[in-house]
């Protein structure tokens, strides 16, 4: 137990600035649980989101991330825990103090955009501005349509708009009433692949321009990495880790996080003095991130990602293993190498490198950064 704690501490040191609730939090979720029948969708979830940041809940389908979003929006009631938005308590279990969605300062961009089919684009954007006076409303709608670049489409109905245009209108509509928090539920999943990449940049630009705090939900790790200030990786209703995209990717706190964020191989190692013995030969202790003295003479698993590894053809004694699998990805090629010791590692090469199956290779750790590690599994 103490072993795990020390390891966690070491990692926390790097995440300290990202992980702690700060006084300017606009959203504070504390121990929230939501159960549907016997299925626990969200399990004592706690999370704090700072003003103006863009945080992504990332996890496989069924991990409870959409339910978390709906709890924040007020579309579901929590069974346990409390939620604060902008300092105001909006939901507490057991009490009737539940603020319905229309009285929360929270906007939502729905997965299917959910534009009102009987209204024009401008009328959709104006929907949440019913209390504004006519002049202000008109000005605000015009401003938002310009911001999303669709001023020319004000009078079009949703079905006349393309997917990307519908998405922009949905975004403008949700930002119009100036919400404290904007929630985005799998915002890009209904778009074509090309448009998806373009809209990621676009949505980030619009959110930052409007200065709105955003929480999005996705199962696509590339999307989460590319648009977020911080990423919260979820599994089975719990948050596994929160941090910057780089922090979470390079220093995953669990094997699940390591595997979910990208290809991950684990290289067994034995710590002796200043060296860590691995099947690829000794590795300097200083190359392993935050390895405390308590771990001397224990077994660990070092996380290696395909881009950390280089495989070269080699003969006889110098070979570490052989190529057992090859996948051509266009610009790069992914190789799987079975080491003589029985483990497998994956290596990502430039597409101009050619290794045939069964080629004996020598494998080299080519990472320029610290490597993450986990105590060996019993």
């Amino acid at each position, binding site marked *: 137990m103490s072993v795990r704690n020390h390891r966690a501490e070491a990692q926390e040191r790097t995440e300290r600035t990202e992980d702690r609730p700060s006084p300017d939090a606009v959203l504070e979720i504390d121990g929230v649980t939501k159960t549907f029948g016997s299925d626990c969708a969200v399990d004592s979830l706690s999370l704090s989101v700072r003003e103006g940041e863009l945080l992504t809940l990332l996890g496989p389908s069924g991990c409870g991330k959409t339910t978390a979003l*709906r709890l924040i*929006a*007020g*579309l*579901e*009631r929590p069974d346990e825990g409390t939620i604060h938005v902008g300092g105001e308590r909006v939901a507490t279990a057991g009490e009737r103090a*539940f603020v*319905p*969605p*229309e*009285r*929360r300062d*929270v*906007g*939502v961009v*729905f*997965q*299917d955009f*959910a*534009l*009102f*089919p*009987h209204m024009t684009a401008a009328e959709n954007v104006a*929907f*949440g501005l*019913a*209390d504004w006076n006519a002049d202000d409303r008109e000005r605000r709608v015009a401003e938002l349509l310009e911001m999303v670049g669709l001023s020319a489409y004000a009078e079009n109905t949703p079905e006349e708009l393309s997917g990307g245009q519908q998405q922009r209108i949905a975004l403008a*509509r*949700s930002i*119009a*009433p100036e919400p404290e928090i904007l929630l985005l539920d799998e915002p890009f999943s209904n778009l074509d692949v090309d448009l998806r990449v373009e809209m990621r940049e676009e949505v980030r630009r619009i959110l930052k321009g409007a200065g709105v705090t955003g929480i999005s939900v996705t199962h696509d790790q590339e999307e989460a990495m590319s648009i977020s200030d911080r990423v919260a990786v979820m599994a089975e209703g719990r948050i596994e880790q929160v941090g910057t995209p780089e922090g979470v990717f390079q220093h995953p706190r669990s094997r699940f996080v390591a595997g979910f964020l990208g290809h991950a191989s684990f290289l067994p190692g034995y710590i002796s003095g200043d060296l860590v013995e691995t099947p690829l030969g000794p590795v300097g202790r200083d190359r392993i991130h935050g390895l405390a003295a308590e771990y001397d003479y224990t077994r660990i698993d070092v996380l290696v990602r395909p881009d950390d590894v280089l495989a070269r053809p080699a003969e006889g004694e110098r070979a570490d293993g052989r190529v057992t699998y090859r996948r051509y990805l266009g610009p790069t090629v992914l190789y799987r190498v079975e080491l003589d010791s029985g483990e497998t590692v994956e290596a990502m090469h430039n597409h101009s490198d050619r290794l045939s199956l069964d080629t004996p290779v020598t494998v080299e750790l080519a990472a320029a950064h610290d490597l993450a590690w986990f105590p060996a599994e019993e």
Partner: protein
Amino acid sequence: MKPITSYLDLRRRQIGADPPSSALAALSALVAVLVVSPMAWLVWQAATVEPARAYELILSSQTALVTANSVALMLAVTALSLLLGVPLAVLTTRTDLPYSRLWTVVAALPLVIPSYIGAIAFVGMFGPGGEVDTLFGATLPRVDGLRGAVFIVTLYTYPYVFLTTRAALLSTDGSLAEAARTLNASRLDAFRRVTLPQIRPGIAAGALLAALYAISDFGTPAFMGANVFTSTIYWEFSGFAVEYAALLALQLVAIVAVVLVIEAGIGRDQDASGGTDRGQPIRLGAWTWPAMGFVSALGVLTLVVPVAIFTGWLVRSVGDPIPSLAFQPEFALNSVYFALLAAFVACAFALPVAYYSGRTNSLASRVIERATYVGFAVPGVVIGLALVFLGTRTLPSLYRQGVWLLVFAYVVRFLPQAVGTVRSSVLQIDDSTLEAARTLDAGPIETFRRVTLPLIMPGVVAGGILVFLTTMKELPMTLMLQPVGTNTLVIAIWEAQNALAYRYAAVPALLLILISGLTMVVMLRQEGYGVT
């Protein structure tokens, strides 16, 4: 009068944090109780009959005859409808029949024309005392009695089988039959072994609707003088044998219940493969002309002959004039007035029920929704009788005095049409659309007003129009509950038939055929008939 109601649509959603309010549930429950209440009156009335006398009446030879006739009518109509409807459906979907869309409309049109319109035309021309009878004596076969009723009811009922079979054929993938043929099955073999098993639920659903209509129909057996439940109930009621009428009505409801139970046991909602691929159409070749002739002949029999007969009566005056039967525009105005009231009340009743059952999936919502379908199952003559009891026993100030008892009867009978159309438009609204409104600061009531209502309005209007048009054509309930001194189109037809002065039925009958055409237009614009 003839809703094909699919209440098997199980897509039901609700906003987790915001179930429909209990006020809405209470309102829906109230509507359900109201429309079920007439049946309670009927049971209560029947229960006041002395047991010994009830026993004697139920076992009387007349009851046995009526039961035998009714079942015979139902079975014969169902069998003949299958023989007409299934081949027509195959003809219009799987062959290279030219103008197949036109033939589809021709074959479907009799659905919306009440069979008594056809009955009075054929009886007036070919029945006892009709024109042909008078001119030639009894040398030609007469159209009357049970056989006449089977003939006429089939002509206006087979479209049920035609349309459900057609819809089933359209939703099955034609390439499956082609796959069978590549496995060396002959065309007939492929139809029998691959297509037929897939469309069987559709055929069965149509057959049961036909059976339901045949046993519920009042006008045709009454005009043909056939002793079945519906006509006998009315005749006993007119002869003040109300106890017997009530007992017969309960027996009729029991038979209908058996039909419905069989219907519920058939899995209907099988969209199977749902392919759009029709496959290679069957080449009719030399059979093209006989096929078109067959459909044309049906169209002539169901549509052209009645219209021609009525038009003939319009231009020729046969027999002594009876001034009291002469057509007055007031008849049409009264019909429109009653139908408008019925349509408005039905929409008002349907809205809470459809919204509640469309947005909630609970035992209560299912029971309430099903309860409002009582009018779909209970024949008009039975609802009429039940409300007569209510009127004469408890609310004499309403009975035949104002319009409200009659309008209530119409609403009970035709509410399923309004609930069906409104509910399907409620189901078409995505959850997230309503949730989006809520997150944009609109409360539940504002969301309903600004988003839900505009989106379901087309469904409400379509439901209202259907109720309006079917109310215009309703015969038995109008006959039993119409306020004294306010005649309508259907009453004018009834009285002309009673006096054997058929020509006075011509104008109101032609007007009703026109209204039937409008019904078809509305139905074609609704989905699910697979015609357009």
